[in-house]
């Protein structure tokens, strides 16, 4: 499934970029994320809980940041497996300045799911993904309020 969109953050580009690379920030912002631990340079082990329609379950996975070109763009690779299936996603994020203390984030990516989530939740994946992205950015704005 393809996902794409834009989001404006009330942060300077440098600040936004830093926030989105900061595991302490990400753990708070990613919906359902329970822990994010560094396992290498720009690689993290992640535990998250996901609910989709009638199914929910814990995922264990990896988050990797690649092709980093601060503060303009980076690639986010997420992989998780759990009792209700697996997910794999890759997204390219681009940050452009949109005035003073305002940054526009443009994202584009592809998400694959499998197992029970695919069999049962296919109809809701699209809306769930969009909702999770919205929640992520809303929370990011909230968490970074003091960093402005």
């Amino acid at each position, binding site marked *: 499934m393809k996902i794409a969109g834009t989001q404006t953050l009330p942060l300077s580009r440098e600040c936004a970029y830093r926030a989105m690379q900061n595991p302490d920030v990400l753990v708070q912002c990613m919906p359902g994320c329970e822990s994010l631990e560094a396992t290498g340079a720009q690689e993290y082990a992640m535990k998250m809980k996901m609910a989709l329609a009638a199914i929910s379950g814990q995922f264990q996975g990896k988050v990797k940041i690649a092709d980093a070109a601060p503060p303009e763009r980076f690639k986010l690779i997420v992989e998780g497996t759990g009792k209700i*299936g*697996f997910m794999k996603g890759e997204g390219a994020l681009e940050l452009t300045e949109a005035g003073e203390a305002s940054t526009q984030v443009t994202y584009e990516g592809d998400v694959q799911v499998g197992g029970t989530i*695919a*069999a*049962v939740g296919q109809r809701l994946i699209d809306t769930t993904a969009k909702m999770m992205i919205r929640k992520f950015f809303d929370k990011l704005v909230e968490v970074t309020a003091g960093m402005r």
Partner: protein
Amino acid sequence: MATTAAPPATGKLVGKRLRRKEDPRLITGTATYVDDIKLPGMHHACIVRSPYAAARIKSIDAKAALETPGVVAVYTGADTKEVGPVPCGASLPGLRVPHHYILATDRVYFVGHPVAVVVAGDKYVARDAADSIEVDYDVLPAAADPEKALTPGAPAVHPEWPDNTAFTYHQEGGDIAQAFAEADVIVKQRITSQRLIPTPMETRGVVADWKPGDKALTLYSSTQIPHLLRSLVAGMLGLAENKTRVVTPEVGGGFGCKLNVYAEEALMSFVSMKLGKPVKWIESRRENYVATIHGRGHVDYLEIAAKKDGTILGLKLKLIQDLGAYHQLLTPVIPTLSVLMMPGLYRFRNVTADIVGVFTNCVPTDAYRGAGRPEATHAIERMVDMLAAELKLDPADIRLKNFIQPEEFPFATATGLTYDSGQYDLPLRKALEIGGYAALRAEQQTARVAGKLMGIGIATYGEICAFGPSPATPAGGWESATVKVDPDGKVTVLTGSCHHGQGEETTFAQIAADELGIGLDDVVVFRGDTAIVQYGIGTFGSRGTAVGGPALYYALQNLKKKLKRYGESALGSDDVRYEAGQCICNKTGKTASLAQLAGASYRALKLPPDEEPGMQTTFFWEPPNFTFPFGAHLVVTEIDRDTGRIEIKRYVAVDDCGKIINPLIVDGQVHGGVAQGLGQALYEQVVYDDNGQLLSGELTDYAIPKATMMPWVESHHTETPSPVNPLGVKGVGEAGTIGCSPAVVNSVVDALSSLGVRHLDMPLTPEKIWNVIQQGARA
């Protein structure tokens, strides 16, 4: 009308519209299904299945599961390697048969592939523990679409066969080149019969009970073929058949998907043998969708050649069959049935067909109600309609013109069959008359002027039933029956055709009661326990009554001979007849009742010469041919321009299934068949994504028709008795499904023909129809 009162003892019961003897327990919830079986010390199994369509198994860590309190064992493919493979009963020249382990060993081949089994005292403990098993997969690219799987460079489902081709099969008859050379018109079309999920109300279930002291296995399974299952599972486990007993309790729907031997049947037996405990596994609905066979999965490329006057000359077919990852019991056979059925009811004798059986990383396909015949009928009936449209002929007329005529029977088809009997125009003419065809066409004209989209669709079908002569049936095609009269004169029929919803508990009682001149309630029909019932083949391919019925008939004839000999002995005369439940001396008029004769046979004080005690006969009947029922369905539809919704205004079904034993049951079979045909025509489709993930994985995403979606089926019949068997019966279990989908699609295409629509592939969802209407509006 149906009656519940027992008819008079000597009344003729065959042909009566009687309610089913089996229904009271079914509709009061007192029947016993596999999941109702509870044995002392019984454990529960949960199966871990692959979430990937293609992957290497790097490791399996069951430590946490084994440490879970209540869990007694976990087995993986390494433990079960020695169990024989899941059997494929098909033999086609050059068929590639992958070794189908009951648990995956080093690699998984489809989403749902069983990888491990967890056993616990409690089913919820087993289920939770299954979640804690860590399987490390190395994910591989998958091939999910049969046509894409055939393209060079597609991922190989089985690495040893990179072209994904399990077999190719060619059949031809007549002179196809000449037929096409002489043709005035050739119509070509690609037609699909999409993958379907059989969806019985009761999923599969198994209880295996190994008795270590006896070294004997009892296997309870929701199956259509208890004896074949016994033979094959015993073979997989290296057990003797006389130490292996299969019991089939009530079966909540088979439709072909339980005409199989599944990994779980051997796996539960293996587990029970390891633990010395009974073990139960009940398939969940989601599991059913990835673990039980799917049906159909055809892509057909067709060409039909004809004269200007509509005379069909020949048909070419290239059939791409999506097999899935493995061959189940009959997987590769199913498309060959489609080829056999290609000529339909028509006289042309020039055909050529090529099948490519394709492996995909999907659930195996196999027999589903109709099994190859709905696909063939859909294709030919669509082609005939397209030909009629091309030649501007009426779809009824073109069919009547091409039917095999009554005087041409027995008719040898171009595909090697011999049609037994038929008067193919009768059901069509009857359907046209009941539907009021001429008036419907006039109504359609008026409706079109008013901007309405009204369609009239006709499909005529023939099918192969009564599977079948043994040389043409993988495991033997005969059937067996035992008739026992107990000392009190009450009768028990043991049938090898393990009916499971087809109503033989009633129809066989009707046959036996009529032959013996007794009441319906004096007869009990029993099936489904290999320790009690003589070997039998089972119920599938509309064979229950058409092959099992004659076996019973002949067993009854032998029983009547025996009764007569006891009658001669009892009445002291050699001039006796058996009639109306008693032996009567033709000279003296003295009588001996069935109970008296049976009692005498067991007391055995005075045995007739060369006669053994007891009153029991068994007959194994080998059918000399298939039977070929036929019929015509007429469907009137109206389409909502704004939403694309199809409303079925009329559904007229005229089916000729030979002699009808119980019209109520025959109508029920037609209605059920039509429901599943409508499912294919309008609603159901299995959707896999490119990675082999099943997206239509539960009933919210896989649309089977509900009661509210069913039209009123005007069910009618013509009766052309089959000369193949003494009952004149032909079979009706699959007829509704076979006649339905082409009639519905022909009707919808007819409705949309004014927009330039020539063909639509199933299912005809509102979205698809709405898009067609939008395009038509723009054009």
